[in-house]
């Protein structure tokens, strides 16, 4: 193994990327874990916002619909980097003001929580639109049948609308998840040590830019490939009961 690396001229890179100091591999992996934690939280938070947002847009009153239209329009219009700066500083400022007003003094806000909050709000706007489209794609007859048999609205949502819309929503949600994993890199700007920031620090300390950014790229790629496998499974499950477009089976 060492011989191979030696002959390929990669011995130096392997040393730099080693998991224990003086290698920086451990730092990169810690960054990746932080990134995934935020991506996961933000995606989940965004899904919850999206579900309520989509229901509100489809079934809500005029005021609620208008408010949601403003939310999705503004969030999707402003560049994410700007949103992150606004939401992060406004958010922490608001919390501190409230906490000081209550006499608790300044509070330290965890980077992970802030990241999830900020990216979750961004994701929520996109998820609202993905889920709204998916709900509208559910054949009205299936919802009507549920109503005709006396299903109350919440049960109908849980038992009919959500499972039936999953097949339409999965591709869009898979996109959102991948965007979430990469948007975590934007949090570097507020000093949160996710994968990109850790990589930059490692690279600038060692001057081995190529090695570290290539390694970070590989990590992002692995995440994407793994996500692809998971979402393919989810989609297969969501499309159960629907005849495949290819193949000869009816």
């Amino acid at each position, binding site marked *: 193994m060492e011989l191979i690396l030696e002959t390929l001229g990669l011995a130096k890179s392997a040393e730099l990327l080693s998991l224990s100091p003086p290698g920086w591999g451990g730092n990169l992996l810690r960054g990746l874990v932080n990134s995934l934690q935020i991506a996961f939280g933000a995606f989940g938070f965004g899904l919850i916002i999206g579900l309520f947002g989509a229901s509100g847009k489809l079934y809500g009153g005029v005021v609620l619909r208008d408010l949601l239209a403003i939310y999705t329009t503004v969030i999707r219009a402003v560049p994410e980097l700007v949103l992150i700066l606004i939401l992060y500083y406004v958010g922490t400022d608001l919390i501190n003001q409230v906490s000081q007003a209550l006499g608790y003094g300044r509070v330290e806000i965890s980077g992970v929580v802030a990241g999830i909050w900020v990216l979750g709000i961004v994701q929520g706007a996109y998820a609202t639109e993905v889920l709204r489209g998916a709900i509208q794609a559910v*054949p009205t007859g299936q919802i*009507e*049948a549920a109503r*005709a*048999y006396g299903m109350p609205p919440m049960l109908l949502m849980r*038992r009919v609308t959500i499972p*039936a819309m999953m097949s339409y929503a999965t591709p869009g949600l898979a996109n959102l998840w991948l965007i979430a994993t990469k948007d975590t890199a934007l949090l570097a700007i507020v000093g949160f040590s996710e994968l990109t920031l850790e990589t930059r620090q490692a690279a600038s300390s060692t001057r081995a830019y190529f090695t570290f950014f290539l390694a970070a790229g590989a990590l992002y790629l692995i995440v994407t490939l793994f996500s692809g496998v998971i979402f393919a499974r989810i989609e297969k499950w969501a499309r159960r*009961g*629907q005849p495949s477009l290819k193949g000869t*089976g009816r």
Partner: protein
Amino acid sequence: MGKLMAMSDVAAKENQVSDAQSEAIRVTDLHKSFGALEVLKGVSLTAHKGDVVAIIGGSGSGKSTFLRCINFLETPSSGQIVVNGEEIQMRADGTPVHRKQIERIRTRLGMVFQAFNLWTHRTLLENVIEVPVYVLNVPRAAAIERAKVLLDRVGLGDKADTFPSFLSGGQQQRAAIARALAVDPSVMLFDEPTSALDPELVGEVLTVIRDLAAEGRTMLLVTHEMKFAREVATHVVYLFEGRIEEQGPPAELFGNPKSARLKQFLQTVG
């Protein structure tokens, strides 16, 4: 013949006595407008237990709308609807006062749709147990047992684990009838159950409905199948432009129609 008449007279008297108890559905002066278009212009109809009421009429006559108003899939504009002696509380604009009351009454009305409307992400068995288990809180094992009997009964016992999209229209509609039977409905509402089917599949669905009529199920049946209506119905209602133009026993209505419009209608549909 005279004897028969006398017997039906007695039956009629008995009916009057036990009217309130034997009434399955009573609709009084039902109006329904979509915007400026008035689709139902005051329809009244009473179905007693065991009645099979066929509702016929041309397209746009309001027959489907009438059926859908009974379980409030469409909100009536005005009128009175009584199901099993319980009046649905309506506001002045026709909207129900209590959502819970509508939901409870809906579980007693098994509806069968023109387009089947089975839940495509669930197998036939799951479709049939869905309402008993999740709305009526029947224990799952009991619901499954009953669902299997019902699927057997409509000839789909071997398809319990198949998803609806893999079945023919006739099979899907028979499954939809099993789903309706699973709630043990006091009245079944059929909204043109064979209109979306290929001609060769109509028969298998009608056979199932015929069996249900024979066992004394109360049904309201909106249909284009005149021969079938004549055969199974105890009472036929002809709707024309949102009003009842003529009604009566099938033999009379089909054999000796009085209204010129009904005569013409029967000629065009053959």
